[in-house]
């Protein structure tokens, strides 16, 4: 188990900077998710921690020990890949045993460790099979087994669930979370899937362009996105963003007016309203009216695309129990405290 510290970690490929002076401390036993679109530097970060790529600049510390230039096998980390990366010619048993064999673990120890890992992952009955005889979910369990047997300092996971179908992804997600609870090891988990990030993480680092945009708990990132990018990246359906100005302690855009008492007047801003932050109208709420253009029922919730005031187009969650029809008017209530304001120029959150 280890505390992982990245100090000004930088990776360049020729003229391209994939990772720009990353500072990140991952606590012992923490589940850290690196979240972002492709090319944001999250996988590069993971590869640097694993030692599969060399840093251009900066330092990497495991429990205070400088490992920046150590080869992968001397870092005591285990890695799980999106493609599973199982050795196709080896049986499940041999796949899981492989890292132990390379460490010259005694035969009895290997047998015990492999069996224990297989039991834990419920693949004990598959030990004689070869990878091509397994389903995707079973393969990923074998890959997890190969990681577990080593009792590594940290688990590194590179989009481990992205090749699985939706139903399996959910069950594997809980399996990984349970593993983390049982093993109490440091997990670094790369994904572009916000639902995975929200459900698994102790903390999420949202990345873009080789930089961390925000580092916070899942709730923190959802409730207080640090900038427009983070606000737009998390949330499904995505947050509604409306450009406007602060005048007289309110957000203004043509006839649309929403209270924003703490923002300084005259500022050009972007207002963020999450679809799920609307309710039935009530005295303490600000009314918001529009016409329903499209209704999307999801079973648990219904979302409506609404042409709102001042030429805006909004996606709103229809309050429970309401029946809405396309072409009809709708009026909901908005809690001003749940509105997000961002500076239009810097894209940063306005406190």
């Amino acid at each position: 188990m280890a505390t992982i510290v990245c100090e000004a970690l930088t990776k360049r490929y020729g003229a391209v900077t994939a990772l720009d002076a990353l500072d990140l401390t991952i606590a012992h036993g923490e589940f850290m998710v690196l979240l972002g679109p492709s090319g944001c530097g999250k996988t590069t970060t993971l590869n640097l921690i694993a030692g599969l790529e060399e840093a251009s600049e900066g330092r990497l510390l495991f429990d205070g020990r400088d490992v920046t230039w150590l080869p992968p096998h001397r870092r005591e980390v285990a890695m799980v890949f999106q493609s599973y990366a199982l050795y196709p010619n080896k049986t499940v048993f041999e796949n899981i045993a492989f890292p132990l064999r390379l460490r010259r673990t005694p035969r009895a120890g290997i047998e015990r460790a492999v069996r224990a890992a297989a039991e834990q992952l419920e693949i004990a009955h598959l030990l004689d099979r070869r990878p091509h005889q397994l389903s995707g979910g079973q393969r990923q369990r074998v890959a997890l087994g190969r990681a577990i047997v080593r009792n590594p300092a940290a688990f590194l996971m590179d989009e481990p669930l992205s090749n699985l179908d939706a139903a399996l992804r959910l069950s594997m997600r809980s399996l990984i979370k349970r593993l983390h609870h049982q093993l109490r090891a440091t997990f670094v988990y790369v994904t572009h899937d916000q639902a995975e990030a929200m459900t698994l993480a102790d903390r999420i680092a949202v990345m873009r362009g080789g930089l961390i945009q925000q580092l916070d708990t899942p709730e923190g990132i959802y409730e207080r996105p640090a900038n427009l990018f983070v606000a737009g990246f998390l949330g499904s359906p995505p947050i509604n963003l409306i450009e406007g100005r602060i005048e007289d302690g309110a957000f203004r855009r043509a006839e649309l007016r929403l209270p924003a008492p703490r923002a300084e007047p005259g500022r050009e801003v972007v207002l963020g309203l999450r679809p799920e932050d609307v309710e039935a109208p009530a005295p303490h709420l600000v009314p918001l009216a529009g016409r329903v253009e499209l209704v999307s029922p999801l079973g648990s919730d219904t979302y409506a695309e609404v042409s709102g005031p001042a030429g805006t187009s909004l996606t709103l969650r229809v309050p429970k129990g309401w029946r809405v029809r396309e072409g009809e008017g709708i009026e909901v209530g908005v809690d001003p405290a749940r509105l997000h304001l961002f500076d239009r120029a810097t894209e940063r959150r306005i406190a």
Partner: protein
Amino acid sequence: MLRLGYDERAAALLVFPVVAVLLVVAAFPILYSFWISLHDVVLTRPLRRPFVGLDNYLRVFADERFWIAVARTTVYTVVTVAATTVLAVLVALLLNEAFPGQRLLNALLLLPWATPSVVNGLMWKWIYDPSYGLLNGLLVQLGVLERYRAWLGDPDLTLLLIANAAVWKQMPLAALLLIVTMKAIPEDLYRAAKVDGAGTFRRFLHVTLPALRPGLMLVLVYETMISIRHFDLFLIMTQGGPGDASFTLSWFIYVETFRSLRFGTGAALSYILAMATFLLSYLFIRFLGRRL
């Protein structure tokens, strides 16, 4: 009467020319040579060709030269196939890495393969030449040799030197086949093996080699078939000599058929060689292929 639809009739019509040509140039010679192998056909007595059953085959098996030819062919084939395969693996490993000039090397690799067999034979004959050969010149100037040697005149070396010329020409295709197989190995396997703690050699042993198996089998079968029947280099470089040092089966067939004009035994020999090739390929596929 077989009833054919329009599509079938059109297909039959379109396929007919190919089938006809194949019948004339492939099926007929194969069957006709088998017929010859069962008759005592000697070209110096063209009108007398009595049926002798398997006598030609028995005569061949009783012939001391046949067993010499089998031994020479075996040595040549084993050396050529082994050297081609090992070299091809090494070259493929090298060219599978990214380094400056790698594309150029890739293109150069194909030159020997593109060289016609006869040109290749002549080239190596010159290189081995006893009076003005490159090999002699090089070794003497380097001080390795005192004086020029007749390389191909050394019965202990002849087969190996011819094998060397064959490997030079055959290795590129084998390497290319293996490079293609290597390119299909997922990069993640190497990354996983690195994290698991495997060094360069272990990664080759546990990731590259198992994945290369289909390619290796293709190379083994193909190179064996090519080598066991090889003829061009023997004709150009040594004509079976010195003595019987390079007296291989294919050369025996040529001598028996076109120099002694005994077509009957020549055809029998050809059938034996063809069956041996067939059997070997079958065994390779049967025993190596099963473990894929």
